[in-house]
């Protein structure tokens, strides 16, 4: 597995994206993400996190500014080259927020083998990858099951499996823990932490601040104005209640003690002793 030969995995230079129709989704984002990082994209609903992930996966392209991935500027033209396209699709994987969108094949087995098959990998290798990834996520007993017979949690797992069978170096996840029960959440977090290493890169979007501290080495906060409000280590920002309030990540809580009204942001503070 080749390592990243250029400095950054992702580099955004005043990246902007407008929906067809003119509404702005993202405004002039600038950031750089390197190998080995685990980045959390945080922002309220509608802040454009999903759109940014789709941009990073080369599914849609910037309407302003530039986005480079694996050293190449992402654009419609760039993907015309079969070689780049194949390489990119193999190395970067995106797990969508809505599992049903990602599970379009008739059975789980078809789903996890879809990716490697399309990329031209040999049949034997495809079969072994399929089995490997099913084992990894404990899905072997669901091999022949059609997607509509799966539970929500199982769907998310199959979704992840179908991307992992590509053996990607970069994993993009759109709200991976939303809708999962606490046990499954914990499992997923453990799995992601295990998966990550210095040659890989993990970027995920979430609204759950607890997750951020458990996984991320870095957090990028996107504000209501669709620009970057903060970018750095989680500890630096997650204990700043004003910042969190401003970006709609927490709500203000008020309660009364007789005539005294206490108003404070509703935030949990974790202290880790590493």
């Amino acid at each position, binding site marked *: 597995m080749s390592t990243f030969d250029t400095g950054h995995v992702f580099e955004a230079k005043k990246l902007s994206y407008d*929906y*067809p129709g003119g509404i702005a*989704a993202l405004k002039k984002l600038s950031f750089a993400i390197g190998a080995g990082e685990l980045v959390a994209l945080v922002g309220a609903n509608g802040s454009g996190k999903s*759109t940014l992930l789709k941009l990073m996966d080369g599914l*849609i392209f910037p309407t302003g500014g530039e986005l480079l991935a694996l050293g190449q500027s992402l654009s419609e033209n760039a993907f015309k080259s079969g070689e780049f396209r194949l390489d990119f699709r193999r190395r970067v994987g995106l797990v969508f927020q809505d599992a049903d969108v990602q599970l*379009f094949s008739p059975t789980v087995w078809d789903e996890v083998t879809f990716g490697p098959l399309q990329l031209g990998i040999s049949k034997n290798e495809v079969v072994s990858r399929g089995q490997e990834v099913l084992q990894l996520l404990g899905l072997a007993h669901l091999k022949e099951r059609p997607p509509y017979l799966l539970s929500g949690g199982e769907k998310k797992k199959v979704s992840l499996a179908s991307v992992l069978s590509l053996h990607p170096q970069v994993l993009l996840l759109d709200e991976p823990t939303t809708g999962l029960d606490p046990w499954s959440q914990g499992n997923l977090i453990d799995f992601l932490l295990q998966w990550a290493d210095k040659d890989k890169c993990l970027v995920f979007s979430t609204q759950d601040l607890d997750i951020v501290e458990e996984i991320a080495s870095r957090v990028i906060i996107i504000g209501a104005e669709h620009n970057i409000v903060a970018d750095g280590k989680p500890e630096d920002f997650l204990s700043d209640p004003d910042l969190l309030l401003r970006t709609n990540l927490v709500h203000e809580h008020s309660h009364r003690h007789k005539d005294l009204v206490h108003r404070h942001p509703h935030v949990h503070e974790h202290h880790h002793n590493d």
Partner: protein
Amino acid sequence: MHIPDGYLSPATCGTMYAVSLPFWFVAIRKVKQVLTTRTVPILAIFAAFSFVLMMFNVPIPGGTTAHAVGATLLAIVLGPWAAVLGVSVALGIQALFFGDGGLLTFGTNCFNMAIVMPLVGYFVYKVISANSDVKSPRRTLGAVIGSYMGIIAASGVAGIELGLQPGLFHAVNGTPLYAPYGLSVAVPAMLIAHLAVAGPVEAVVSGGVVAYLQRAHPSLIKAGAVGTKEGKLWILWGTLGVLALAAPVGLLASGTAWGEWGVDELQTMGLGFIPKGLQTLYRWWPAPLPDYGFPRMGAVIGYIMSAVLGMAVIAFLVWMLGRRLVRRTSPAAQVASQQEHTG
């Protein structure tokens, strides 16, 4: 209108498959051209939608329910050729999984409901709504009338297919081998059932959905530009097609005078020919079968068959000609169709 296996002879089924094939090929090419690699997911999901639509039982006055096919609706939103494929796929799944429509008769059912219906319906819709604004009531009217005419045309063709069976395919002693009723019964029966019942359901559903889309999601209606040509040639083309369809029906009119039998013994019947409340049919139940041995009939029916076939060939040739004559879609339209992302 889903004709099951057993009602049509294999010869008829084969013919109808052959007639449908050119339309399927054209549809595939046209749709691939505009949708490119998006073809599969868009068509699949709209075929699923078409299937689900056919499952809705709409209440109609009289206390029963009927279901719409939605071919014209699909044509309005996705374009006629995408509708051809979408409805064909939905019909295929219905035939395979639910026995709704036979497998031999699949070609026939597709011709009626997936080819004739959306093409006729879309043509009428275009004529009525022309280039009016997306939210204009003319479009709703076009949807209502277009879908109604589409389903009527389809049912008429189905009636012809069924009605030709006894005359063409019978045992030595005259027993009809497949569908037992001749043209003079099958065609009116089908037409009446659809004029009175299924047609209004289709019209109401299509019109209702288009009206809703106009209010809530007008972009969907503008999006129906897959593989259509703006401008006069489409209208010429369509007129030719409608005329070609009318020709066999015109021939039919001279055929119904034969074989008038004494109707008294038949009036004691109380059963429905086609279910869902068509008692009215029996008040004027005409003689069902012309005399099989009658020599002239053979020639005329053969004529009708070749007219139907000829119509398909003509349509295909006209399309080929049309491609040479018409300008390609303008660059602006191509860019617009690519920006179909909804973010």
